[in-house]
């Protein structure tokens, strides 16, 4: 492993969602000499789902793609001295650390040292405070308590820094805020402290631009003829170059596909932001209002102007809870009177579902081709298409009802209006919903657990 900490730190993205592509991560490792690779793989509800998994199987509860990612990336990380930081630990970072060592071993990378960050799980602490207010809706937490699965605090970059300080090759966490995974590498590499607010702001800004992988390099952007992305199929994962004094460039490998410029950076800057003057992270409150970009070539953009105020006294904590089942099914109609047939089919499904004892608190009927994505304003502004696909979905208290709903849609090819094609029961799924609360910082007692470190 390279021990000297260079004046320019290169941190790249290896994943931006739980099931993100692996191939571009390998290409990035091959093409650029990184210092750190960050894989952000943990959506809000995933951790609750993995908590349920862990209760059934105590050795599980981490990201299901862990084996595939580790086997693809670790040989290159070892060869090039790149340290991996990931939240693939989900509900069980220590088990994930053991799994990472085993998967690396399986592809010939021996004795990988890991540091697991634990302590984000505050389920029991939160359970004792039913008066906490839910951020979405404002109800007291009490209303969800009987159905609550887990509560996990969004930890900050200091834990990632501490974990890297142990010398481990791989840092694996549970719930750490996405941009904090990146800032943590910079706080470790450049020895920044929380008092260096300008640098902390720069590090979070870099993380925010990198955390959604290709969303800064041409993903989620193209509109043919209007906003073209060259070689969209080859959109690369991005990386940042960050100097010790906090200057930031967002980059993609030289000659790679995709697109990186002021437009892609501006879109990603405001992605999932509410008040741009108060972007709250566990590490600081960022003001994005003076952020601007300077294109220094097709593969490189300088980032300027991120400002920050000190972090707040609370941790945002995500609450996962059981919320029944959703069942759904689809079937398509085409030609003369297709839309009327689809509407009749929906009525038939509702009626049969009710007659046969199905229970639903809400049934949604979508006509794909008219208003499934953007709804139908009902003002005649949506012309009738040649073909339409009917989708019916229902929120049910029990799995049987959810399955029944999908079955009735599936059976429409014989049991419904004429000429329905491609029927499918898209299945019943158990719903794990999320909400959030704010908790005092001192309710959280994080720890670093090392696995496979030399004594």
């Amino acid at each position, binding site marked *: 492993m390279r021990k000297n900490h260079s004046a320019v730190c290169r941190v790249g993205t290896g994943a931006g969602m739980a099931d993100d592509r692996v191939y571009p991560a390998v290409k990035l490792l091959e093409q650029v000499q990184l210092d750190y690779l960050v894989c952000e793989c943990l959506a*809000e*509800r995933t951790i609750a789902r993995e908590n349920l998994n862990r209760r059934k199987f105590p050795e599980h509860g981490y990201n299901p793609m862990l084996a595939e990612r580790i086997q693809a990336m670790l040989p290159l990380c070892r060869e090039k001295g790149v340290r991996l930081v990931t939240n693939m630990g989900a509900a069980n970072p220590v088990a994930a650390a053991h799994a990472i060592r085993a998967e690396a071993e399986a592809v010939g990378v021996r004795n990988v040292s890991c540091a697991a960050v634990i302590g984000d799980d505050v389920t029991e602490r939160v359970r004792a405070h039913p008066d906490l207010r839910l*951020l*979405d*809706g404002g109800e007291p937490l009490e209303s969800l308590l009987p159905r609550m699965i887990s509560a996990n605090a969004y930890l900050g970059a200091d834990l990632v820094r501490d974990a890297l300080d142990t010398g481990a090759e791989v840092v694996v966490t549970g719930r750490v805020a996405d941009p904090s995974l990146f800032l943590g590498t910079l706080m470790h590499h450049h020895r920044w402290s929380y008092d260096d607010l300008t640098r902390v702001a720069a590090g979070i800004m870099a993380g925010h631009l990198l955390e959604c992988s290709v969303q800064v390099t041409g993903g*989620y*952007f193209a*509109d043919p*003829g*209007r*906003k*073209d992305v060259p070689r969209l199929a080859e959109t690369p994962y991005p990386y940042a170059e960050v100097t010790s004094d906090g200057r930031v460039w967002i980059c993609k490998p030289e000659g790679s596909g995709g697109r990186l410029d002021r*437009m892609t950076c*501006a*879109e*990603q*800057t*405001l*992605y*999932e*932001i*509410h*008040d*741009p*003057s108060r972007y709250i992270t566990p590490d600081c409150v960022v003001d*994005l*209002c*003076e*952020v*601007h970009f300077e294109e220094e070539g097709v593969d490189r953009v300088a980032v300027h*102007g991120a400002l920050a105020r000190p972090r707040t006294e609370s941790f945002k904590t995500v609450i996962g809870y059981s*919320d029944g089942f*959703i069942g*759904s099914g689809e079937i398509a109609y085409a030609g003369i009177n297709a839309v009327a047939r689809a509407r009749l089919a929906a009525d038939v499904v509702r009626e049969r579902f009710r007659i046969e004892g199905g229970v639903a608190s*809400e049934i*949604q009927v*979508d006509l*794909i081709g008219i208003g*499934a*994505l*953007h*709804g*139908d*304003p*009902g003002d005649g502004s949506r012309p009738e298409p040649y073909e339409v696909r009917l*989708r019916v*979905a*229902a*929120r049910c208290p029990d799995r049987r009802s959810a399955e029944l709903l999908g079955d009735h849609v599936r059976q429409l090819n014989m049991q419904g209006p004429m000429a329905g094609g491609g029927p499918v029961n898209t299945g019943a799924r158990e*719903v*794990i*919903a*999320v*909400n*959030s609360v704010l908790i005092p910082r001192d309710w959280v007692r994080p720890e670093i657990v090392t696995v496979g470190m030399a004594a």
Partner: protein
Amino acid sequence: MSERLLQTYPGNRVYDLAHTRSGDKGNTSNVAVIAYDEVSWERLRRHLTPERVLAAYAHLAQGPVTRYEVPRLQALNFVIENALAGGVTRSLRIDPHGKSLSAVMLSIELPPA
């Protein structure tokens, strides 16, 4: 490429003036609207009001809609509450994240310049 299209299509839709991206947090959608140029930015700032935006999303969202200005990026950020049918994890919609909702914004017609 965008410059050429702007010159040949000086339209009044948001599509003609700006590019957009939507994101989600709970039951709230945010849609960023980023102007292609200074002239478009001034038109958007004047005419793309929260009221006009809420009207375009009225059949999808209850609101309220809050508008934030980011002059340095020539961008408006709209925060549309109660927009995701209960939120990403609960929604019965086919697009629970509202990933497609930025395209609603592009269809809004503004008064002629």
